[in-house]
């Protein structure tokens, strides 16, 4: 029986991508004084889209056939590995150099303030996705326990 729907999967993926973006931004902050360092970031919406494609491609390869008589509620079978189990790595995502006009004398182009703002926004959105996932699961839990 499948009970976890596509939206939950999407929320899970968004958490992964947000964490990855935090790592990138952290690296930029860490290297704000490193000579010649070029900061990197990823376009979240584009990254999610590319993860979506990645997932769907592997999902079609592992199509789950429905056994006659089994209830098909959509979603991923419990206990089976989800198609997107292949570890997401920065290599798979559109990570780009942040364009900049003002390099300091040593070639470093990290804009610390902008980076910190991006990091704050990213963390906020991460929290929102986590909340949404938590709520959806809470609804499921309530239903599964028959309201007890």
């Amino acid at each position, binding site marked *: 029986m*499948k*009970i*976890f*729907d596509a*939206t939950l999967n*999407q*929320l899970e*993926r*968004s958490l992964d991508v947000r964490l990855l973006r935090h790592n990138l931004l952290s690296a930029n902050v860490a290297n704000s004084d490193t000579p010649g360092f070029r900061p990197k970031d990823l376009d*979240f*919406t584009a990254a*999610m*889209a590319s993860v979506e494609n990645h997932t769907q491609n592997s999902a079609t390869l592992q199509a789950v056939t429905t056994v006659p008589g089994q*209830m098909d*509620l*959509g*979603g991923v079978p419990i206990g089976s590995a989800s198609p997107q189990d292949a570890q997401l790595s920065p290599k798979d995502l559109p990570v780009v150099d942040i364009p900049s006009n003002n390099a300091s004398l040593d070639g470093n182009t990290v804009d610390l303030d902008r980076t910190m703002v991006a990091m704050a926004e990213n963390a*906020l*959105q991460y929290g*929102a*996705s986590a*909340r*949404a996932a938590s*709520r*959806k699961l*809470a*609804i*499921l839990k*309530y*239903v*599964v326990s*028959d*309201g007890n």
Partner: protein
Amino acid sequence: MRTEMDLAFAKINGLDGAERSIEQSPKSPNAAAFAGELDRAIGEVDKLQVEADQQAARVASGGGNLHEMALALEKADVGMRLAVRVRNKVVETYNEIMRMGV
């Protein structure tokens, strides 16, 4: 149908039975009204789940509005709780009626 909805109602043989027998009983205009009302209520709850999912999907893909999503999720939660409560009550009542015999 949303998966939570399916889960809630697919498990309920009682409700299934209740609805069927009500629909089949002759000369009961109230039965049809009741079944219709039930359908409508289920539809409402379903809409709330769908809206919540859409809001969540929007935030997950990078856009969306955080407080809209939060409100939609809470409404879906409340709606589902109400539906489960109602379902439990209906099943309970149906069983009682069946026990009474006629």
